[in-house]
């Protein structure tokens, strides 16, 4: 899909994406010659068609997560389908290592953990990894609710 500015005969370039949360999407494209902007508005079915491809208009802010499409699209996902690899008890019977906190690098505060626990378990591991990767990239040592909000805003996460 491309948008052509007819006045300039120039391809318009992606500028901004907005997801209002009602299943629709707005993608803004701008002509680099005359600065004219236009917004492409998609209805829920059209938005779903794009997301069914596992792609995001304007590119991805976070890397593709394993089985992201299945996890974010399936209705009635099994609560305990996925177990974070660090939560799997070790065969030797040792206590499981719980993520980065055990390594002394990134700590989740109890408030942040509580908020994470409100995320459906079907996608919780994926969401936890996204926040942890964001913290590592930003040099943030402690994940708090405020940092989670910051990450959401920066990464454009919806519903996480």
């Amino acid at each position: 899909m491309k948008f052509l500015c007819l006045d300039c005969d120039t391809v318009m370039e992606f500028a901004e994406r907005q997801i209002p949360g009602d299943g629709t999407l707005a993608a803004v494209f701008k002509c680099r010659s005359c600065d004219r902007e236009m917004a492409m508005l998609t209805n829920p079915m059209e938005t779903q068609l794009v997301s069914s491809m596992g792609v995001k208009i304007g590119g991805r802010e976070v890397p593709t997560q394993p089985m992201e499409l299945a996890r974010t699209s399936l209705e009635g996902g099994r609560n305990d389908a996925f177990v974070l690899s660090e939560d799997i008890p070790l065969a030797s019977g040792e206590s499981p290592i719980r993520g980065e906190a055990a390594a002394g690098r990134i700590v989740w505060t109890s408030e942040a953990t509580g908020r994470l626990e409100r995320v459906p378990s079907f996608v919780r591991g994926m969401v936890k990894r996204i926040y942890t990767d964001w913290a590592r990239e930003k040099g943030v040592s402690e994940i708090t609710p405020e940092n989670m909000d910051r990450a959401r805003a920066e990464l454009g996460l919806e519903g996480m």
Partner: protein
Amino acid sequence: MRKIRTYQDVTHETGSGLLEQVVDQQHRLADRLATVRSVVAVASGKGGVGKSAITANLAVALLARGLAVGAADADLNGPSLGRMLGVSEARLADRPTGVEPAQSPSGVRVISMEFLQQEEDAPLRWREPGMGGFIWQSTLETGVLREFLGDVEWGELDVLLVDVPPGTDKIKRLLDLVPELDQMLLVTTPSEVARFVVSKSVRMAREATVKTVALISNMASHTCPECGHVSELFTGDGAKRLEKASGVPVWAEIPFDPRFGAATDSGTPLVITDPDARSSQTIFALADRVEEHLS
């Protein structure tokens, strides 16, 4: 009328990143399957011919040959492979690099939609919107199948069996994702109706780049357990006719045995519970053929 440049005329990209993301998906899948020696589809086009039970038994038979075997249940709407291999309650280890498959008691690495659904009797349903599913559902399910193949940490495998649901469109879906399919085993029965339907799949497989295509005739005969008399379950000779007409060989004629289905129902394939049964022996011989033809 003014001349507007066409999409093909306009070579400059828009920065929407869609094409790049689709290419990334293809690379991700190819990278994952790079450690898999052969992808082998068990398909038909026709429903109810025993694809899943054959896949489960074949997986274990290949494992018994010393091969590392994975099995992907491409039947998202009617998953059964996990159950047939005895791993329906599996939990999947979630790693940054991928999801670890379930492992059956016999050692087959398995992925199935069954592992992801909360309720046993829940039909497969996707989130919003409720309307217009015919527009996006096939795209979404192809994407989920891509994740089953590409986001699962299969590791080093000799064979990845893919249990393909009924419908030639589902075969096409797999071929779109894995154009370099090594083998396609098309399951039919001696019935004329099955021959009619499966012939379409034969044509599709031959027109694609599948390296080896073979037929499996299931429920080919029935032996009376009381007197040993062998009788035909179907009056036709569909598999043989299909072989003759298409040149695609029949690699196995699996006799009907009620224990075949009962064993997979219980989660332990017949090749384990009764390896000497005629059906099991036929599956082992089929495994030999599959192994001989691996790339």
